[in-house]
């Protein structure tokens, strides 16, 4: 078992509503790409929000480097090195690419450091440099997703979470996007992502987590998860209709 980041028996919901996550668990290894899959409404986004500190846990723990960090605010999670890009609309559409990157380093509160970090991002993502002074909302979907992912790197996080980064992108762009994910992981940053297309997600990940009805069905090396018959059942079977 890893002792990097562990989600243990997490139960959570919105406001006074029903529990959306019910005893969800997940093991996260440093520097690996983890893919959370599951049907619509399974609670994938909710799990990421819970880890990001956006909704309180009713039960369970989130253990990060040996410490229970459940109950902390999003900005505290960010300071600890856990960054989150929510599903859709993560950017500030009427701010320029550069301004969006500056917002990524808002908590640094240090203009000089920020400028040099933005230059580093520009070196790694030339397309963003090209578009530096363009409004984020006027870029293509793929470029916007690149910006959203690159923006998390400004704070040099240890863990980045991307909720459905492939949403609405053409297949070719999705491949590029997964290339970026791999490039991020190769620098030692741990990646968690949600992917609607289970096969594609698992093929591009090291570890798979299968969520259904707010519960973790199982997790494991992505090749094993991909080969598991339960996946077929979950996505193709008539179990839920019964």
């Amino acid at each position, binding site marked *: 078992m890893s002792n990097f980041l562990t989600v243990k028996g997490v139960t959570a919901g919105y406001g006074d509503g029903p529990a959306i996550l019910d005893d969800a668990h997940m093991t996260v290894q440093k520097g690996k790409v983890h893919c959370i899959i599951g049907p619509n409404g399974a609670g994938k986004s909710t799990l990421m929000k819970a880890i990001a500190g*956006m909704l309180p846990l009713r039960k369970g723990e989130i253990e990060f480097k040996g410490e229970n960090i459940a109950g902390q605010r999003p900005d505290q999670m960010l300071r600890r090195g856990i960054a*989150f890009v929510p599903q859709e609309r993560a950017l*500030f559409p*009427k701010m320029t690419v550069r*301004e969006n990157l*500056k*917002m990524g380093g808002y908590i640094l*509160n240090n203009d000089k450091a920020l400028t040099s970090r933005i230059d580093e991002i520009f070196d790694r993502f030339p397309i963003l440099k090209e578009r530096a002074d363009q409004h984020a909302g006027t870029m293509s979907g793929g470029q916007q997703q690149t910006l959203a992912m690159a923006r998390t790197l400004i704070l040099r996080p240890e863990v980045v979470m991307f909720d459905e980064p492939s949403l609405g992108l053409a297949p070719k762009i999705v491949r590029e996007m997964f290339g970026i994910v791999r490039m991020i992981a190769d620098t030692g940053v741990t990646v968690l992502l949600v992917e609607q297309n289970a096969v594609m997600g698992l093929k591009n990940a090291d570890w798979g987590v299968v969520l259904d009805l707010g519960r973790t069905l199982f997790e494991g090396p992505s090749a094993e998860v991909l080969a598991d018959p339960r996946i077929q059942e979950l996505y193709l079977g008539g179990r839920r209709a019964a």
Partner: protein
Amino acid sequence: MDQIIQVAVLGIGLGGVFALMGSGLSLVFGVMRIVNLAHPSLIIGGAYIAYWGFKLYGIDPLIMLPVCAVILAVTGILFYKVFFERDAKSATYSEMTVLLTFAIAMIVEGALGAAFSNTQRVTSPVYATDAFFIGDVFIPKGQLYAGIVSIVIIGLLAAFLKYSRLGYAIRATTQNREAAALLGVNVNMVGLMSFAIGIGLAGAAGALTSFVFSFFPAKHWEWVAVLMSLVVMGGMGSILGTVIAAFSLSIVAAFVGTWIGSTWSTMTFFLALFLVLLFRPQGLFGEKPELV
């Protein structure tokens, strides 16, 4: 030709003041999603402060302007703490604040009426009734000064929003509240600060208004609709859009007033509002409808 320039000049002068009035409203709407119907009544409040400063102590309204702005900003903070902060988490926040700000407008009007009576007032520094000519074009100093000061204040606001750290946070919160919070912006503090700045701008506008228009406590009803039409035309929450709408409509209104009749000049704003809602509900500069 001279007459055209003449009317345009008057329109620009008023446009500046309306732009200043509208920018505070727009700022508050952008960040807080509060349609602040009390904004014009607070402008009148600012006008009274400038009026009494001049009447009692002979202080020029342009010097009273920062005083009005600060007093109103503090009032804004109090209102925010008392009325708006509690309900910020409610799902019907925007709808509720419409009623709430309507009530505040009436309370402010009543309080001003009780304190200062319903007599028409106007602050009368020398320049308010003074004018000069460029060629044959008649330029009233009061409107000119008010217009220039408004433009300077709007310029400062724009620079503040563009370059300062709080300005970044305000813009980010306006555009995507959740994403701003995720990046460590304290969105509640940003809400409070923009409320204070927005109402402070109402105070500044009040000081200028006090010598450009004659005013009385119920005068704000005339402005509610005018300002709403500016904010809607500007794209709900876009300050630049509001400012452009203010200048263009004020100039059109000045022409309508001169050539068709002064009673029709206010109608310009409503007609424009009507047309915009019909054909471009997202406003002239907005990108998507946010009126619902």
